[in-house]
């Protein structure tokens, strides 16, 4: 047993603990994502989505992108999920059980998803077989902000205008006149 661990740690340098946690969180995320697309209750789907989004935030922490992880929690879990729950409440016709989907449609969707994953997995494993990530220290937020407000200032302004347009557009679309 200890020889196994020694071999594993020699193989993966010193990242055994990180790899174990990565595996646990990845399995949780995949299970939650499957529940999002299979559960028949819309509210349950939104709550399973919270698990997936939290798992994605943890993956960002593994990758050293702490600012993105915090933004993920604030924007997605804080705002987007609340929007979803409001949407579910306002369209209360869908509160109960979801529709039953035709069997052949479900089969075709499964085939499509599995084929897509097979293609992507083969391409990824072929291209990045042994590429290792070395993350010594988290990415500093100073670097991210400097980069946003110098190199990426034009996309940043474009996103600002986009958010304003989306806000105005959502009000115009959804109001009763």
């Amino acid at each position, binding site marked *: 047993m200890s020889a196994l661990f020694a071999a594993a740690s020699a193989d993966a340098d010193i990242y055994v603990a990180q790899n174990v946690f990565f595996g646990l969180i990845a399995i949780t995320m995949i299970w939650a994502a499957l529940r999002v697309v299979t559960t028949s209750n819309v509210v349950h*789907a939104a709550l399973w989505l919270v698990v997936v989004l939290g798992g*994605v935030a943890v993956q960002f922490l593994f990758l050293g992108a702490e600012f993105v992880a915090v933004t993920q929690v604030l924007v997605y879990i804080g705002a*987007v999920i609340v929007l979803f729950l409001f949407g579910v409440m306002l*369209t209360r016709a869908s509160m109960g059980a979801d529709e039953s*989907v035709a069997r052949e449609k479900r089969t075709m969707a499964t085939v499509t998803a599995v084929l*897509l*994953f097979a293609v992507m997995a083969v391409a990824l494993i072929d291209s990045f077989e042994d590429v290792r990530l070395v993350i010594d220290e988290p990415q500093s937020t100073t670097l991210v902000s400097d980069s946003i407000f110098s190199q990426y200032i034009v996309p*940043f302004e474009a996103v600002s205008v*986009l958010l304003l347009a989306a806000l105005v557009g959502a009000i115009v*679309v959804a109001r009763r006149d």
Partner: protein
Amino acid sequence: MLLNQFLVLAAILFCIGVYGVLVRKNAMLVLMSVELILNAVNINLVAFGALNDDVGGSVFALFTIAVAAAEVGIGLAIVLLMYRNRRSIDLSEADMLKG
């Protein structure tokens, strides 16, 4: 850690999202599946940013989060309008434009 751990996880999430978009008839659930797809893309962006030791990946992940928030806002407004007009958000019934 291997880069492929993150990329394959993102691919799995992406494919689950694609399955959800294809199989769901409730518009809210389709929007949730789209969120799964966008999150898979974000993992890829941040992973490649970490690989190249570049902040560009994180910056674009932030942009994607902002665009996804805008998308959800507009999408929910459209779903609300659909519900108000038809008393249903079943996408298989929304076929008025069919020729």
